[in-house]
């Protein structure tokens, strides 16, 4: 089943982050970052390690303390909300690690994702998620901790989809994955996710691969936005390739092509 066939079930919502300063223990990692995700868009954030990409996502979902600036989801100002409250208004979050309930089965993980739903809705939503990720249907009774990297990430996304989120936030979904699996996760799973209608904000280390599926991309370095643009614009920019990937642009293009 290809991504395009998955039923569109939600209306994406807009995310607007403005002048965000956030960090750990009172010391900022992000120094005034503004981004926007329009309804139904796939927006990616790339940048080197330690540039604050994950911190940005974690402040959006209420895990990291916001020192100043605002975060708006749709019409709601969610700045400083607890993460369960952010989840309750339809923001799904897939963390980079610890992304499933390892001791529970795949089915239980999905049911946990639908914790806020009524019993009847849970069953219906499990079916809907299995429609989005049909591969999960074969492994419902397996323990999440025993899944392979790709399967596990698919489950994590499926778990986040249970509440039919209008915005899905993904933190490096391809970390720890072999190249081929990583490509599948981005090309298929993230697209399947977006096909539900949800807006998607994804942080990635594999810049080139994520460009291929993004509507727009932000480049973050040292806790500040460095560039912004469509994939085509960025790919055309030598500054982008050099700043992020380093070394010779030509060599890379030649190799990557």
């Amino acid at each position, binding site marked *: 089943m290809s991504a395009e066939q998955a039923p569109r079930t939600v209306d994406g919502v807009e995310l607007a982050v403005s002048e965000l300063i956030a960090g750990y*223990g009172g010391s900022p990692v992000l120094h005034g970052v503004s981004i926007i995700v329009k309804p139904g868009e796939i927006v990616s954030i790339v940048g080197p*390690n330690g540039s604050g990409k994950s911190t940005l996502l974690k402040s959006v979902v209420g895990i990291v303390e916001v020192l100043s600036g605002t975060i708006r989801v749709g019409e709601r100002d969610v700045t400083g909300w607890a993460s369960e409250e952010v989840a309750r208004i339809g923001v799904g979050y897939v963390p980079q690690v610890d992304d499933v309930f390892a001791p529970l089965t795949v089915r239980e993980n999905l049911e946990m994702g639908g914790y806020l739903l009524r019993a009847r809705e849970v069953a219906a939503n499990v079916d809907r998620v299995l429609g989005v990720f049909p591969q999960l249907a074969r492994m419902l009774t397996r323990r999440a901790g025993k899944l392979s*990297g790709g399967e596990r990430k698919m489950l994590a996304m499926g778990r986040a989809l249970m509440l039919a989120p209008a915005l899905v936030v993904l933190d490096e979904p391809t*970390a720890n994955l072999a190249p081929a699996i990583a*490509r599948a996760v981005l090309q298929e799973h993230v697209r399947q996710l977006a096909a539900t209608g949800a807006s998607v904000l994804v942080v990635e280390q594999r810049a080139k691969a994520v460009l291929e599926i993004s509507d727009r991309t932000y480049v973050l370095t040292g806790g500040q936005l460095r560039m912004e643009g469509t994939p085509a614009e960025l790919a055309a920019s030598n500054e982008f390739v050099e700043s992020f990937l380093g*070394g010779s642009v030509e060599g890379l293009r030649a190799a990557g092509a």
Partner: protein
Amino acid sequence: MVYYITTLLVYGGIDAIACLGLSQQFGVAGVTNFGFIIFQAAGAYTAAILSLPPDSANGGFQQYVLGWNLPFPLPLIGATLIGGLLAVPFAAIVGRRLRGDFAAVGLLVTAVMFNLLVTNFQPFLNGAAGLSLVPQPLQSVLNPLGSAYAWSYSAAAIVLAFVVYRFVRRLTNSPYGRTLRAMRDNDVVADSLGKNLRSLRTSSLVTGGAIAGLSGGLLVGFITLWDPQAWGYAETIVLFAAVIIGGRGNHRGAVLGAILVPLAFEEATRYIPPVPNDANLVPALQWVAIGLLIVVFLWFRPQGILPERRRIIAGSRGVGAAAPTAAIASPSVPESDAGLLDHVAAIPVSARSRYQGDAILACSGLRRSFDGVHAVDGVTLEFAPARLTGIIGPNGAGKSTLLAMLAGTLPATQGRILHRGEDISALAAHRRARGGVVRTFQLASEFKRLTVIENLLTPIPGQRGDSFRGAFLGRRYWGAQERENIERAKAMLERFGLEALADRYAGDLSGGQRRLVEIMRALMTEPDVLLLDEPMAGVHPRLAHQIGMLLVGLCEGGTTVIMVEHELSIMDEFCDPVIVMAEGRVLAEGAMATLRSNAEVVEAYLVG
């Protein structure tokens, strides 16, 4: 009245001795032994049965083993020895890699069970009734009922407490004590720098146990009786309360705690007239108060009344504030780290002989799995001497796991590791470190409550004072070498331009400064293979570049450096060869320029 005062003095001395033992074990070495009281009990029983006549002598009204009727001071010496010996099996529990609170629970339960066994097995130590009529020291020559005897006993207790204080202070202020404190702050790192955790923990348990045994022997010689009620597990909590309230890691604090808690609460109030009809009210309330004190102090003043003091070694004017509190790290401003290494001088070359072979370090078929997932899946590599080798790869490629296996902090599931042609696969991390294979950590791993210069001094191999014996022999034995080492450490700090930080707590430094401390600390071991796990992560780009230059300099001097890094630009600039890993395997190896044209590499690392 005389009896009251002398009793207080004797108890004060005995409590101080016990608390000093716990202070050394828990405050300095960080070993949480909730079974501490049974070492005091062992000492008391030992002294009792060594000084008592055979149990048939008194018409057999009490049963016990031994009964050797030994003269003073043999029972006291026996008490000390048995206290120390009893610690050895305990080391088996603490020595294992067990969650700290699980181990503590295990020891607590052990103490409860020892009490139960002794209570119920009468032939051994007279069971629940306990031993009585224990002969007092020198009672045949002196009159134990006279006030002169009481005063002498108090004097002896206080003098012994002073001797024990000097003893533990001597241990703590030595390089050995520094190593114990380093282990307390971060045991995994201490291990990776060549410290044998098991033997350090064992020696701490034995030291504390022997001191507790001495206190028990002294106690039973004064009160002449000893029964299982005297050493319930709650008594251990009292001693912990004393050390926590007095100040962990400060022996004067332990003495103060001994005076404030067990002495003031248990003994000084002994003669408060009982409340009519409720003789038990006051003792019960004392226990409640001790419980409250523990909770209140841990909340409001976890460092105690007399906190561990910072040791000024370099004598620099470095403005050191009070002890760092774990929760509040000093705010690190990245920009200020930028020029940290602007004045770096050449680093001295390792004294180890230069390796002439092809591969100073090699591994073959190295595997490691966690819960069935292969983090490293069959890696075979050879590292040429005096080169700066880089390892790159996506998150989770197994780079850090590989490094940890080479250094021995993680045991390999399978495979062999050769250093200078010798198989080191089975060696523990500290043995490899002593052999010259030393690692750093990705996460901050400085010993927070050691000063910068102490951090540098800790890993120096072959320190005369870095053993129990050396520490015991005293400064005269190790002082001269220590002064040389301090000069070496100062020289290292000066080369990095960080001498002003020498006496600051490492936990108070900025992120970049801590990175440098870690590198300097590793260099102090004069490694011939230096394994670095993302040494530039999170540091200012300019500092990262300077660190790179420094590493290149090290290699020119003959050191082999293997570095895990994320940033391709750093690989480009400094590393040759570069190893690319993905999914636990080696994908490619070679110069960065060649690798860039390797489609598979670009795919794995950049594209996915």
